[in-house]
Structure formats: C-alpha cells, structure tokens
C-alpha cells in the first residue's frame, strides 16, 4: 500500500487539507468549499474527511500528518515583534499575546490539530509534524513540478520569520539558499496598498493588480525612495515607520497617508485616479523586485527552470514579466500558490523523508493532475440529485453536450460548467466555471452585473486551446493554471481610435477580437487547455472553435461575489437559479433556465453573503 501523508493548513486564512500517496497529490481541497465561508480559517474538518474518503482510507492508514508551519518559531517572531514595537504596540499586544499563550492557544496549535483530528473519529491519529511555512511553499512549488532540477522562489506576506526565500531543488532534494525575514515583506508591502486602496487584505490583492493598468506609476519613485530599499540582487528592506502592522491591526496610518495624498479610500467608495496610480505604482515596484529576485535565483543556482509559490506568485502580471524577460527557459507556478497550497507542500516534505520519489518525472507532466484534486460527482449521483428535486433536465452524451453548450455560447448565452473534480487553488479552471463568448464586448458587463452582481474594472480570463494559444496571445509557454498574464496577439488587436473615455470607461472600448477578456493595456490572464489535463473542457473549446472559428472562451469562477466557488451539484444549481446563468451543464446533464420551476427563498440570500 502507498505511504499516505495528510497535510493541513489552518487558523490563518484559506484552511485546506491535502493527501499525498508516495508523494503524489491524490486529493486536496480548501475548507471554504464545504463550509461555504470564503477564506474559511477554521480547522479543515470537512476537507480532511473528503481527502480520506476520496482514497477510501481512515486516519489509521495515514503514516503522518504534516502541519504547514511551525507555531513555536512563529511565536518567537511574534514576541520579537512585540518587543521591537514597544512601547507603541499595546493594541497589538492586547489582541495577539493572549491568543498565543491561552491554555489551548496558538502556541499549542500542533496539539489542537491532534485534538481536532481525534474528534473526527476517523481512526487512530498518527504523528502530527510541524514543517516551516516557506518550506511548505517551496515543496509545493518544486516537488510536483515537471522539472528534475530548478531554482525555487517563494514570496509571500509572512509565515514564521521568512517572507522571501530562494531554494535549489535537485531530484528529491530541496536546499535553502537565502531568505529575507519579517518585517521586510513584499507581500505585506502589496497588502498595505491593497488596504490603502480600500480592499480587504489577503483577498483584495488581485483587485489592485487588475486596477493597475488604468493608472500611471507616478508614485513608484516615492515607494522606492521611502518605503523599500531594493538591492541589485532583489533583496530588500521596508521602512517600518510608514507601516502600522507592527503596532496595530491595520496596515497603514498617518505617515502613509502623508506620503500618498490623503486618507485611504473608504471600502466600496468611488475609485479615483489616485487609486489607479497607486495600484500601477506598487505593481511596477513589485515587478521590479520579482525580476531582480528571479535573476539572482538564476545566478545563484545556475538552473534554467524556475518554480514559484507563495501569495505573491498569484500575481500573474509579475509572473508574465518574469517569463517575458527570458531569465529562465521555463517557469512553473504552483496553482495553489497561497497558504492552502502549504497543506500540500508540508505533506510532500514529510513524504520525501519517508522515501517518496518524484515518480512523475519523465512523463513531461507535473504531478498536479491539472489541479483537479477536489470532490467529483458522477452522473449517477447527479441524476439522483436531479430526480430527488424534480429538476427538469436533458441527458446527453459527452460529444452532444459539448456541441449543445458550444451552440448556446455562440448564441451569447452564459453557461454554468460543472464537470469532474473540483479545482484545488483559488482559480476556476474549467471544472467549476461560468463560461461565455469572448467575442462579444457585452459579455464582460453581462456576466458581472447579472451573474456576479458587481461592477468590475477587470476583464474576465480567457481559456484557450493550448494548440491555438499563440494565435491569440503572446505567450512564451503554456499557462495551465491561469497564473500568467500575456498580451493579446497583435493579429487580434483592434485600433481603438479617438476616444474621450477615461478611467473605468476604457474597459468598454473594443480593443481586440476577444474584447470580453482583453484588459485596457491589451493584457489577458490566460489559461491554456490541453486534452490531457481536462478532456471535457478541451472538447467544449474544440466544439466552440468548430462552430465559431474562435478557440477561446470567457472563464470565471462558478460563484457570486463574496461566495466560495461551488462544490456540489446543489451549490451549482442554487447559484444557477439565483443568477441569470442561461444554461447549466452538470456532468452530462443539461439544464435550461426556461425549463426550471420558479425559484424562491425565504430570505434575501444576497444579504447573507459578505462582500469580498
């Protein structure tokens, strides 16, 4: 029997569980998908149950449980921070210190994990082993990558001490090369601007990235002069006088406001040119640092491949710049680059110590199975659900389903696409997606207003047949996990001509043959789709291309604003009925909105979902 190791990340944000068999990921999911609370930080009990059920095993069959960070080491960093901030950090001390030293506080997290696992009654609990936060990221970046050897960069907010780490991976070994430590953090710098622009820290960073193309980086020099000292090798320090995170529970205060022309934007308030320019500036400086880090990683390891993880690796614009710079021949990014992926990396670290080999090497593929590691519902289960609730539907074979959905998409319909195993990581990759026609300029606003119930300044992401990607995007390599931004190919770009449009109006201008996925700077967050990674999705894209000549679809996550991505057929049907999605493909079953009975709920569901 395979050696099974269970990984867990929890108690900060995006709790998750992952199961590896002889080091290969076989199941992984974030707790939010089960609890329906976005970024759920609680113990991932349901995700653990799922991982074990998926393999038909109990905890007694697992050789070890790996926790994604070291609470003892983290506490030492917290203490040093409290000492370093005194006497101005009482608020932080009052909030933080008791939560660590309480009888079942964070200092005893490993015990708590053991107790939580015991309370699940899933068999004898094996040893619980704490790994280091950045080691977990680095393992998740290198071990499942398709490379025999590579440089590895992990960049995030903070775990224990490290905030940026460089590693050298060879075979089954991963050696730390260098690190930058807290309080100096590129992730926290970006989060400070996220907070200052009125978005939520640890979730709104992608909005800052999406806002950047509207602005000019007029604050970039101020950031370089006052906030961050960047050495030529990419290492850096922040000037902590401008940040509040050592002293309190917020990111920025008066000193930051003085530097950037006034108080922070009120959340949900109007976006002004200042926010556009702030976003453009912090994005530019982040890219500069990441590029320098990548060059140093190349020099210090001599490797021609790079693996990335950590929250900053979700900055797909910066990833695109690294790839375009040609510093490395190829770059692989862990699809669950944030803390959820730490569960996977921690499990892999322990599996390697148990003797696991990277058996996927030589296949030319990574070991992530397209990141489709979540729950799956077969057609029998879906049929049971549909019959139990008397939901009108048609059952089709796979080819007919792809053809019917492609026809509806070409007619401008919006389709909920629920197929196979759920994605692990923050992106919908064609298993739990809402799809539309990218050729229609109206698709972006229709999908936002009628389905996501939001105004959005970001275009949606395109999914493209990998074999046609170069005709549509200036992409130097495949992007299976939608973590690379590339420019729309010149052949697809259109002249915008004279316009008086400014700010967010710019997004409404048709600037390519696929306007719904083209940002104002002609960039697009691309997912390349292969038959091997996702046959059903590939079949649909092929059918859409056969019908329209266009091998691209609009892909957005299957949820409404503030809600986690759907997990079950029930979640998908509820989202379908609450929104203006026209068609739902649940496995091989097709549900048309007109055929459905009227939908009613006792309360206003929109009030129950917090804003993101």
């Amino acid at each position, binding site marked *: 029997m395979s050696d099974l190791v269970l990984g867990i990340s929890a108690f900060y944000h995006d709790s998750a569980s992952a199961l590896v068999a002889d080091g290969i990921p076989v199941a992984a999911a974030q707790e939010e998908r089960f609890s329906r609370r976005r970024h759920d930080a609680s113990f991932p009990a349901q995700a653990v149950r799922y991982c074990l059920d998926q393999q038909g095993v109990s905890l007694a069959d697992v050789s070890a449980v790996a926790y994604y960070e070291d609470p003892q080491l983290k506490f*030492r960093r917290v203490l040093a921070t409290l*000492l*370093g901030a*005194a006497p101005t950090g009482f608020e932080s001390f009052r909030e933080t210190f008791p939560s660590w030293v309480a009888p079942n506080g964070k200092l005893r997290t490993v015990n708590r994990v053991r107790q939580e696992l015991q309370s699940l009654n899933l068999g004898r609990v094996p040893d619980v082993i704490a790994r280091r936060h950045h080691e977990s990221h680095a393992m998740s970046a290198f071990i499942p990558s398709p490379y025999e050897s590579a440089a590895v960069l992990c960049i995030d907010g903070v775990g224990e001490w490290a905030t940026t780490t460089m590693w050298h991976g060879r075979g089954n070994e991963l050696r730390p090369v260098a690190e930058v430590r807290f309080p100096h953090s590129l992730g926290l710098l970006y989060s400070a601007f996220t907070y200052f622009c009125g978005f939520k820290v640890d979730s709104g960073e992608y909005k800052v990235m999406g806002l950047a193309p509207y602005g000019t980086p007029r604050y970039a020099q101020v950031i370089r002069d006052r906030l961050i000292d960047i050495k030529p090798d990419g290492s850096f320090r922040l000037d902590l006088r401008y940040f509040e995170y050592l002293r309190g529970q917020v990111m920025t205060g008066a000193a930051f406001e003085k530097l950037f022309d006034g108080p922070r934007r009120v959340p949900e308030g109007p976006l002004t040119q200042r926010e556009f320019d702030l976003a453009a500036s912090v994005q530019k400086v982040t890219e500069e640092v990441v590029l320098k880090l990548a060059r140093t990683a190349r020099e210090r390891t001599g490797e021609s491949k790079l693996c990335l993880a950590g929250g900053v690796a979700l900055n797909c614009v910066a990833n695109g710049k690294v790839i375009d710079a040609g510093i490395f021949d190829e770059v692989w990014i862990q699809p669950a680059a944030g803390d959820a992926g730490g569960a996977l990396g921690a499990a892999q670290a322990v599996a390697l110590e148990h003797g696991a080999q990277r058996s996927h090497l030589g296949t030319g593929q990574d070991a992530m199975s397209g990141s489709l590691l979540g729950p799956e519902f077969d057609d029998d289960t879906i049929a049971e659900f549909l019959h139990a609730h008397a939901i009108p539907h048609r059952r089709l074979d796979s080819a007919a389903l792809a053809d019917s959905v492609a026809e509806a998409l070409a007619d401008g319909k919006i389709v909920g696409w629920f197929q196979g195993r759920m994605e692990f990581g923050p992106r919908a990759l064609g298993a739990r997606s809402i799809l539309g026609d990218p050729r229609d300029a109206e698709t972006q606003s229709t999908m936002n207003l009628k389905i996501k119930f939001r105004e959005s300044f970001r275009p949606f992401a395109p999914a493209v047949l990998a074999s046609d990607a170069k005709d549509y995007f200036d992409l130097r390599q495949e992007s299976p996990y939608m973590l690379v931004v590339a420019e729309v190919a010149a052949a697809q770009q259109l002249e915008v001509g004279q316009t008086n449009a400014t700010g967010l109006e710019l997004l409404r201008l048709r600037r390519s043959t696929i306007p719904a996925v083209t940002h104002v700077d002609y960039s697009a967050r691309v997912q390349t789709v292969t038959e091997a990674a996702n046959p059903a999705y590939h079949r649909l894209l092929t059918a859409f291309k056969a019908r329209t000549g266009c091998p691209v679809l609009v892909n957005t996550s299957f949820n409404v604003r503030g809600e986690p991505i759907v997990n079950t057929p029930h979640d998908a049907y509820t989202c379908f009925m609450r929104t203006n999605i026209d068609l739902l493909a649940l496995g091989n079953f097709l549900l048309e909105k007109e055929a459905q009975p009227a939908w009613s709920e006792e309360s206003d569901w929109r009030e129950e979902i917090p804003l993101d």
Partner: protein
Amino acid sequence: MRTLLLFLLYYLIVTPIGALSRLVRDPLKREWNERADTYWITPARH
C-alpha cells in the same frame, strides 16, 4: 481586569525588555544599510 493585567505586563515588562534589547540590537533589524550589497540572510535555525 484582563486588560489591566495586560497593560501592566506590557508597560512593566515588555516595554523595558524591548527598549533594552533595542539598545543592544534591534530584534527586527529594521535599519537600512546603504553600504550593504545585500539584505539576503543565509538560512539558519532560529
């Protein structure tokens, strides 16, 4: 009551230790060093 205890703990113990430790060496290494070539640290056990 808890806040009072935390207040006393913070200002009678944490603050003096913090001030003294910073006199010797800032535990957070906040200063910028224009003459340094790098801020990289070689990983070691903490």
